[in-house]
């Protein structure tokens, strides 16, 4: 073997490797480029669902029907919840998916807020089941201005909602199902009654900051209306934290903590330990999301009847409900935007919305879609609500929620600081945050 051959073989392997690498970089995703008609061709969809999840089954069925009707091949990747994390690096290449889905709280930071999403004007103008998409989605959801880009056009098409409520077992507490507490005072008297009967009133997985913070943000929004937490967080002077209404909201959380209502050990456990205890009847109530029935079904005690009532009103004010969109967005760089919008609207058909409500047992976006009995109480509260707000009231400033608000709010909810100290600390931390990030 000559010296040349000794060089050639490794070099050939290397060249092959480089070719393979570059092929991965430029291959997929360019199918059908240029000819973005509404029939035939193909599009890529990165899904937030994994194969086997109830939601995935409904969407997969819709995708199959879509292909059968339009001849458009849909290349679906069932990526799971990390699809938005994977999307960020992809946005810097020419290899972007045509369609992605996710909750608003995850799509807004990477697509909506950064101007990387295409306006979905066509989707909203489409007619589904004889009605315009814009009319199918209840107006109060669309009034949540955050899904509009800088030109005022919507960049997200929701197909489902998530909300929250205070959950209980209607089988063991029929009295709560018959007359749920409406006001804050009613609610605390229910807690006192439960405690007097020797029952643990509330369960909470204290290690999940997002659940803990529901108490403060909802108490504030009930008193001051939707957008009040957003306004508070956006205040660069931090002066908002001096407001008596903010302190009152923190005091309400403090009362829950100090009232001895919370399940023993909530501050030192690992999710889902406490919601398991709740589902097996060791505590009466739990403030949590509309996914609770699906999530706790496997360990709920036999005969458990899921029911909920909305977070109580404060001083007879706002009854608006949390409604987080789960829906589609199209990256601005996508090559098959028309087809992607077509598929997105396809899922709004009554057939799939009904399946989403009854098979997947979550909340479909269409008001006329069928729902499962577990969701009835949440749906009723949402339908009756005059307006809606988003998780964290739509605050997505870089690092604000997870580095500034959650750590301090955890201290309050886990009983380590008082309401007064919490408000003071938040004011200082927020001033510092805006000094560094302003």
């Amino acid at each position, binding site marked *: 073997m000559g*010296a040349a051959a*000794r060089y050639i073989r*490794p070099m050939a392997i290397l060249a092959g490797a480089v070719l393979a690498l570059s092929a991965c970089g430029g291959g997929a995703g360019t199918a059908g480029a240029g000819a973005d008609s509404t029939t035939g061709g193909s599009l890529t969809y990165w899904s937030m669902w994994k194969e086997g999840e109830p939601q995935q089954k409904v969407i997969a069925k819709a995708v199959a029907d879509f292909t059968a009707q339009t001849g458009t091949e849909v290349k679906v990747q069932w990526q799971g919840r990390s699809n938005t994390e994977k999307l960020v690096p992809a946005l810097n290449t020419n290899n972007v998916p045509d369609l992605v889905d996710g909750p608003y709280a995850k799509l807004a*930071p990477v697509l909506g807020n950064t101007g990387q999403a295409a306006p979905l004007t066509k989707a909203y103008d489409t007619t589904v089941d004889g009605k315009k998409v814009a009319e199918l989605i209840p107006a109060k959801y669309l009034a949540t201005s955050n899904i509009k880009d800088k030109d005022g056009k919507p960049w997200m098409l929701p197909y489902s909602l998530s909300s929250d409520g205070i959950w209980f077992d209607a089988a063991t507490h029929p009295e709560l199902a018959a007359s749920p507490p409406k006001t804050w005072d009613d609610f605390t008297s229910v807690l006192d009654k439960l405690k007097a009967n020797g029952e643990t009133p509330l369960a909470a*997985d204290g290690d999940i900051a997002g659940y803990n913070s529901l108490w403060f943000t909802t108490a504030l929004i009930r008193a001051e209306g939707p957008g009040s937490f957003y306004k508070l967080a956006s205040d660069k002077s931090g002066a908002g934290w001096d407001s008596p209404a903010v302190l009152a909201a923190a005091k309400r959380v403090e009362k829950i903590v100090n009232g001895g209502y919370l399940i023993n050990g909530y501050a*030192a456990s690992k*999710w889902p*330990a406490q919601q398991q*205890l709740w589902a097996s009847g060791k505590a009466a109530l739990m403030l949590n999301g509309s996914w609770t029935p699906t999530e706790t079904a496997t360990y709920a005690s036999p005969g458990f009847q899921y029911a909920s009532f909305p977070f109580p009103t404060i001083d007879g004010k706002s009854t608006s409900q949390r409604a987080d969109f789960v829906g589609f967005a199209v990256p601005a760089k996508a090559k098959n935007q028309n087809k992607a919008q077509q598929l997105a609207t396809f899922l709004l058909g009554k057939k799939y919305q009904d399946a989403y409500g009854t098979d997947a047992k979550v909340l479909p976006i269409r008001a006329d879609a069928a729902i499962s009995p577990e969701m009835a109480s949440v749906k009723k509260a949402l339908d009756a609500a005059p307006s809606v707000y988003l998780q964290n009231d739509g605050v997505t400033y870089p690092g604000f929620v997870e580095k500034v608000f959650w750590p301090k709010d955890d201290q309050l909810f886990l009983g380590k600081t008082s309401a007064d100290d919490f408000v003071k600390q938040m004011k200082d931390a927020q001033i510092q945050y805006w000094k560094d990030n302003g």
Partner: protein
Amino acid sequence: MSEVDANAAVDTVLLADGAKPAKAARREAGSSIDRQRKKLLIPFVGPAFILYTILFVVPSLAAVWISFHSWSGSGPMEFVGGENYVRVFKDPLFLKSFGNTLLLLFVVGIAIFVLAFAMSLVLRDMAGRKIVRSVIFFPHLINALVFGVLAGFIFNPGGIVNTLLGPLGVKEPPAWLAQENIFPLIMVTLVATTTGYYTTILMAGVDRIPPYYYEDCALAGATAFQRLRYVILPLTWDVFGTCAVLWTISSVKIFEIIWVFGGSSGAGIPPTQSWTTAVYTYVTAFSGQSTPSYGAATASAVISLALVSVLVVVLRRAMRRDAVEF
């Protein structure tokens, strides 16, 4: 034929396909094996070097470049100079995370090495040491995720520990998984899982020492400590140094065990009390709750890299000894 000529003749045969004139070859020092080695340097090292450059060096340099910008991961980048570094260093959360990284590096590191060394001495002349070695190495093979999930079963308010403590009359057991206790628990877990790994490496070094040194010690009437000080330590010093560098590099990257230990078996992020710089970097870039800030995240990653580099250099200096030949 003189010896030089003979060599040249061999060269000519070897280089028959004309890669190099025999004259030039003669001027090069060393045997033909050395020259063979040199020739193989490029084909053998080249691919690794190129892949390493593409996959590690270029991304690292890109990270440094990104750290001078304000960027949300896609879309426009704005040059901000060293602002990200200033901001990261002013962030009390980063300083706390940095402090935790140092705790892992030094406190956990020292505990691991003391224990590993003690164990390798005990195990040296213990019966059934091969089995014991496998047993203590075993935890290292298990994914850190398992320990994170297991922590829930063991330390939850209704978990194994409290169930066992109940009959012993402990009415108010400690809040094991309270936010402030999670980091100490992680440190203990790390000591428990990593000690076996370093024990195995150190034992290989200790086993290498010929038995006649020990016999010599016994004859000279050396105490156990003297034997350690004058025989075992000097003869395993190079192994020790390598282990120290390995630990430094791996401890700065510790991430997954923290991610799963507190609040994150799928539904949240760990409490800030237990963050390390690796977790800080991750949350800054991919929290999923807010607009990503890649500039600050890469700045934090670059600081970690700088920390590792400085520590490794310092460590190599401090541990430098002439290897004892035996």
